[in-house]
Each structure stands twice: as C-alpha cells, then as structure tokens.
C-alpha cells in the first residue's frame, strides 16, 4: 500500500474550535436546568400543589423555541463543515480537511440528539397542568 497525498486546502487547526462540538448538548443542559428550576421555584414559592402550572408551561415552551433555534444554528454550521470539499464519510484521512469534516459531522449528530432530548423535556407541557 502506498500513501496518497492530499493537497486539499482546509482551515488550519488554529481556526478550528473544539467547543463548537458541545454547543448543542450545552443548550440542552441549560434548557433542562431552566425548565427544572422554573418549575421547582414556581411550585415551591408561588403555586400551590393543586394550583395552575400555566406560566411554567409557557416558560418551558419559550425556552424550547429558543433552545431549538440555537441547536439548529449549531447543527447547520456543523452540516456546512461536514459538506466541506468533495470527500465523504467516514472522514478518516490524516488531513486537515477530514478533521474539519469529522468535527462538523459530530456536531450535526450531537445537535440532532440534543434537539430530540430537548423535545422530550418539552413534552411535559402537554401532560402537566398543576403542581401535583
């Protein structure tokens, strides 16, 4: 086997950002915490056990929309990097281009998972109407 040499012009490592990989899961975590804290504080401080959860449901719905917008942006940026150049999966070449595509692909997958997990959490607004 002989090595093949790539001359593809991909971004240098210094222009790559590892943190972009975990933007979407972080958004999920913030959405989750905000939803939990809002419900906990509301039920402990404002609402009574049988009292309405309406404001909390709206709050969670708004958090969800904001979170999904953020995750979508992160996912699209990942998709752009995944589609960089002409090579396709599995992104396993020792080249800056495949590193760039791989990080993009992993970002897309994590964005997808985070979106699903965020929607799972948001589903509580359809099932809970009071603080019981």
């Amino acid at each position, binding site marked *: 086997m002989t090595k093949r040499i790539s001359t593809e012009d991909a971004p240098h490592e210094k222009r790559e950002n590892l943190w972009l990989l975990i933007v979407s*899961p972080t958004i999920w975590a913030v959405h989750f915490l905000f939803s939990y804290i809002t419900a906990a504080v509301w039920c402990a401080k404002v609402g009574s056990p049988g009292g309405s959860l309406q404001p909390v449901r709206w709050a969670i719905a708004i958090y969800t929309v904001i979170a999904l917008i953020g995750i979508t942006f992160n996912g699209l940026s990942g998709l752009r990097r995944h589609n960089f150049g002409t090579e396709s999966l599995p992104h396993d070449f020792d080249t800056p281009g495949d590193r760039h595509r791989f990080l993009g*692909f992993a970002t897309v997958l994590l964005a997808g998972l985070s979106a699903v997990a965020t929607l799972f959490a948001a589903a509580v607004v359809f099932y809970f109407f009071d603080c019981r």
Partner: protein
Amino acid sequence: MSPVTHHDDPDPLPHAPTPELQRAQEERLREAWRSPSGWRYWSDVNNTIVGIWYTAVAFLFFLFGGVLALMIRLQLAVPGNDFLSADRYNQVFTVHGSVMMFLFAIPVFESIAVIFLPQMLGARDLPFPRLSAFGFWCFVLGGIFLSGSLLFDAAPRGGWFMYPPLTSTYQPGVGADMWLLGFSFIEVAAIAAAVELIVGTLKCRPPGMRINLIPLYCWYVLVAAAMVLFAFPPLIAGSMLLELERAFQWPFFDPARGGDPLLWQHLFWLFGHPEVYIIFLPSIAIIAMIVPTFARRPIVGYGWIVLAAVGTGFLSFGLWVHHMFTTGLPGVSLALFSAASEAVAIPTGVQIFCFVATIAAGRLTHSVPMLYTLGGLATFIIGGLTGVMVALASFDFQAHDTFFVVAHLHYVLIGGSVFPIIAGCYYFFPLINGKKLSDKLGKIAFWFLFTGFNATFLPMHLTGLRGMPRRVFTYPEGLGFDALNLLSTVGAFVLAIGVGIVAWDIVRPKKKQPLSERNPWNAGTLEWLPRMPQENWGVRSIPEIDSRYPLWDQPNLVRDVDQGRFYLPDAEEGKRETLVTSPIDAEPVQILRLPGPSFVPALAAITLGGFFILGTFYLWKAAVVSLVIALGTILHWLWTTTAVIPEKAEKSAGLGLTLPLYSSGAKSVGWWAMLITMLAVFTAFVSLVFAYFFYWTIHEDFPPASATGPGVFWPALGAALLLGAWALTLLARRCNRVDNAPAFYAFLTVAIVGSLAGAAALLAGPWRTGLDPTRHVYDATVWLLAIWTALHAVVGVIMQGYCMARRAAGRMTGRHDIDIHNVTLFWHFVAITTVIAAGTIAGFPLVK
C-alpha cells in the same frame, strides 16, 4: 484502503540507523526508563507499572466485594436465616456496594486507562506520572481503611448512598465518618487521575493522530474523565456537609434547625447517576477496541460512537432525580427527569448498533474476548431495557426499593462493566507480561459467569415484582420469595466459581508458557506495537500516524518504530521524555521531560490520608499536623520536579524537527492540569451555592427572620480586597515577564497582605454579626461559603509566596514562568468564587 495524508507529513527515515547506534539508543532508553529494584520498586511512577498495581489492587477489592455479596446471598438463601445479624447485614451490604463502586468500578477504569492510554497514543508516558502514583497510594490507603472497618464491627451501615438522617442522627460510631472521609480522600485520587487522562488524551498524542483518528477508547476515556470533574465534586461537597453535621453539629440535613435531608439525595445522585456512566463508558470503550480486531475491519460509525460517548456524557447529568421519584417532588419535575432518562437510551443504543453493524459487516473470528464481549452486550441490553422501565416514574413507584431495582442495576453494571473488563483482561493480558491467558479456562469461566449471573439476578426481577424490599436482612416464609431467593443464592455461588477461575488464570504461574507472539490478535491500534514482553519505555520511537488503524494501514510501521526511524528514538541526556502535541491536529509542540521514580507521591498520599483518617476519629490536632506535613511534602514535590528550567532551550526530536523543552501558559501541560483541577474545585463550590438556593426554594424560613448577618459591609470589603489581590497577581505576572523584579516582588507582597485581609474580612461577616453555625442551617451555610472562599485565598497566598521564592531562587525567570502563569489561573478562580460567594451571602438576602 490506503491512507490519505497531508502533504506536510514527514516520512520515517529512509534508512535504518546502524545496528550499533540502534543498540546504543535502546540501552540509553532502557536506562532512563528502568524500574528501580528491591524495595525501591515501590517508588516507581511509570504509568504502565503504577497502572498494573492499581488494577491488581482494584481487582482484590472486587474479590473482597464479591465475598461480601456471597455473605448477603447466604443470609437471604432461606427465610428467617440467622447467618448474619441485622446489624452485621447492614454493614455487609453497605460495604459491598461501596467497595464495588468506589474501590473497584471507578479505580479500575482509571487504572486500565493509565496502563493503556500512553500505549494507544504512542506516548512514552502520560504527562504527570507522579500524580498517578499519588492517586494510587491515596486509593490503597483509603480502600484499606474503609474495608478494614468491617473487621472491627465499625463499618458504615447506611447503604452505599448514605442517606441522612439514617447516617446522621441515627448512626453513632465512626462507620459513617469512615465512609465520608475515606471516600472523599479516594475521590481526590479519582480527580487526579482525571487530570492525567484528559491532558494525556489532548496533549500527548503521536504526530498525525488528528482528532478524527483517535482510538475510540480515548474518546470514551476523555468523556468519562471530564464527567468525573463535574460528578465527583457534588459528592465531595455533600460529604463535607454531612461530616460537618456529624462532627460539629452544623444542621445541614436536620429539619429541626432548618436543614433538609433531601439535599443529600440531590448532591449524592448528582454524583451517583453520572457515575454509572463513568463506569460504563470506559468499559464499553474496551469493547470498541475488541470488536474491530475480531471483526477484522474498522469500526462502523466512528462518528456515531463519538456522538454516543459525548451525548451520554451530557445527558447522564440530567437523570439524577430518577433515583428520587418517590420523594414527593412535583410531577412536572419528575417528568423532566423521566424524559432525560428515556433520551439517554438513544446514544446508549447507537453505540451498540455500531458494534453489531461492525460484527455483521466484518468476518468475525471466535475468541475468548469476543465471547465476553457478546455476553456483556446481551446482559447490558437486558439491564438497559429494565432501565427504560424504571425511568418511567409511574412504574418506578411500584418497583422502587424492591429487588427489581437490584436486578436492574446488576444487569447494567455487570453486563456493562464487569464482562467488558474481563473481555479486556483476556484481550490485553499479553501486554502486561507477554503471556496470553488460557483460552480453555476463559471459556469455562465464561459459562460459569454467564449462567451463574443470570441464575442470580434474573429471578430477582420477579422477587422484586412480588414485593420483596431491598436491604432487609431476612424475610418470612411463604410470601413467594423462598424458591427465588434460593435460586439466586445458588446462582451467586456458580458466578463466584467463574470469578475464581478467572482469578486463577491471572495468577497461575506462567513461567513455562511461551511468550505470546507480537500483536497476537492482529489488531490495528498502536497499543499492540510493543515486543513481547514489552520494555518500560512505552514506544521505541514515536510514529507519525496516518490512519485510525495504523498497524493495518501503514506499511512497515512496526519495523520503522523498532529501528528508531521516527521521533525521539533516543534518550541522549538520560532523561525520560515524551512528545507534547497540539489538541486538534496533534502537531508536535514540545518535548516534555518527565520525572523519575520517587517516594514523594506515596509520602504525600500517606500524610494527606493521615488528615482524613485521624479526622475520622475526631483527632483534629493530629489531623492538622498530618495535613501540614502533606502540604510541606507537596511543596517539596513541586519545588524539585515541576517547571524545571532545562539546560538548553530546545532539542532535536528527529526527522528534522527541533522542539522547545519548556512551554508556559496555555501551551504547558501544567496549566491545563490547573485548569482541570480548578474546574472540579469550582464545581464543588457551585454545589455549596446550590445548597444555599435549595434551602431558599424549599423553606419559608431561609433566611430565618431571626438572622442577623452577615450584612453587606464585611463581605463587600472582603470581596474588594480579594479582587485587588487578583489584579495585583496579574500585574506581577506581567512584571515577571519583563524581568522587572522589584515591581514583581512589591505587587505580590501587597497581594499577599490584601488576600489575608480579604479572607479575614469575609470571615468577619458571619463572625461580627453573630451567626452561629449550630443554630440554624442559614448560619451554617453562610459560614461555610465564607470559609470556603477564605481557604481559597489562603491557598492563593501560599502560591504567591511560592512564586516569590521561585524567582528569588532563580527557578523562575521572565522566560521560564510556568509557576506564575498557573498561579494566576488559580487566582482567576479565586476571583470568580469570591464574587459569587460574597454576592450570595451579602446580596441575596437583600433581594428577598
């Protein structure tokens, strides 16, 4: 398929060095990496050696935990049994759970990783070998201390989760203190290992091993180690609160004085649930290495497995309340955690599909490691499915605290961790001493383990559904539990026979057995480079990597590495060295000198352990003396072996590459270690702040109407002084850089005075306003936040003084400024901690 590389990548030397030169290089490397002999052997710090000790001790604790399990099963074999008294039974199941979790599952992940990570990364060693040795000695000491308590009828009795008030008001004696202090100590070791593993994975890869080419094991270990940083600190914080309540009557969990036992459950499970994944991910990581080897093809869905590892790492932090479904939280809260618990099944399932796809797409060769892999996956899937069941709050209300949960957790942990680890044992063993384990014994043991395991735990689902509660020492006849329990007990002994066979296979004499051939399984990853038996140097020369499976894809790799045609083929100065590379593309940036054997890490561990052990018996004076000795030892350690100024600025790494021997700031590995350590410390602090707001949320009387402090003046003054000290430390770093020594000393001197005054002012807040930490939880929480911040300032002062001494002694200069960079980083965290602590204790009562 042939690998594709970048046009900048160097090739190995076209011609081998002369045989004489190769021999001389090998001799120098051998000498530099030689293990000490005689009793000094125990001063070794090479990760591979320490990792083997670590794994062996963890395995001994596993056997000990197993014996306790058999005692539990004997007691439950028949109704009304009196083999163990109720009190003894409580001790046995508490120590069984604690040992298996804290002394086996977590340490074994770290110990396996410190053995194999350097080898998978083609590194001579990980960047902080003495830190790993320190962690090992902490673990041994803490483990013996806790396990030994059982022999003196003094073991903890509260279950491995130690819920108060069962472990506070209702449990006199030292058992619970042993648990709280002993495990806090061991958690220090776990965080030390996490630092080593994270920095190792990000900074010590071979050139060319870009982030898309890292062995999957390393991804998993990176994620699990990062999880340790955020999961363990809440437990350390919780243990501190509970110990303060037990030792000094600070009422964090005492409802009569405003406390709340539920806070413990939050802090414990904020650790406890991610911990399950901290155990599971590195174990499944072994499977991710084994499957491609025996399927004879690259893994299918590498990117998807990275998704699984990272995604599970995140989601596992949103599950903790599913252990608390029956504590009366509002339904909407339970549902959020139930949703996350269902969501985590997605990434967990994804990786299993990837393994199955790899097996299906490849040509599977039958082998013992593969047998354990498949057995483990099948078992884990059953545990995962019952996990999805108990993740539903409504089902959990029925199953909670019954044997159904016992069955579920054992399917998860034994399927997801023990089977993969035994698979790894059979797979990796040739790398330990050059000999293979026996295929025959491995197969026999497997069938004992597999049938024994299922005979033990499958019936428990039914025992639980029929209503048998956990943690009861006996049960009456005729409730439908009798035959099922007897079957579980018989199964447990069959399982034990399997464990015994594996243990025998490991320890049986192998002198007459021939050495294994090199790379016996024909694997593709770098850990299989070494000759059998392997040398201490880790890798003969550090290769340039072009592929995820370099041994399959890179022609002549083994020959070129062996002949020293790659990087660092020599140890000209007789020093231990490895390459440091950049985190994303693994471009070489530095040659890192590593410290050699020393008893200092062991001494630091023993003296630090002394603090915790003596504290258990409330011998606080002796404990503080031990702590001071530990501090002195650690300072000596830092002074003599860290940030050493090299005799020359740079040296050749081979292949025409010249690299610096010293880097400071974000380029140095020490800076990363400080950052990672402080993230963990900061997480513990956030847990304490969480406690403050938890009390505020749940309790009407927080702060109580009678609260008199801490007021605004003292906390604000303290914060201002500490922020001033932080700014002066930053200025001092700049002055050092431009070699303005007078200003450097002046700024740091004023900073030290300011820090001490700031710490005093913070403590003056609760003190001058008469807050009594034993009166109400509000007073206790304010005191604790103030003390925590003040202690940071005091540690910061020690660091500032250390930097002044380093410069005065000529060990730190304008160019060689690792120390002051790392101290400044510490002070960034002091500044954030101060702002949050002062803002909370002084500002929040005003908001209310």
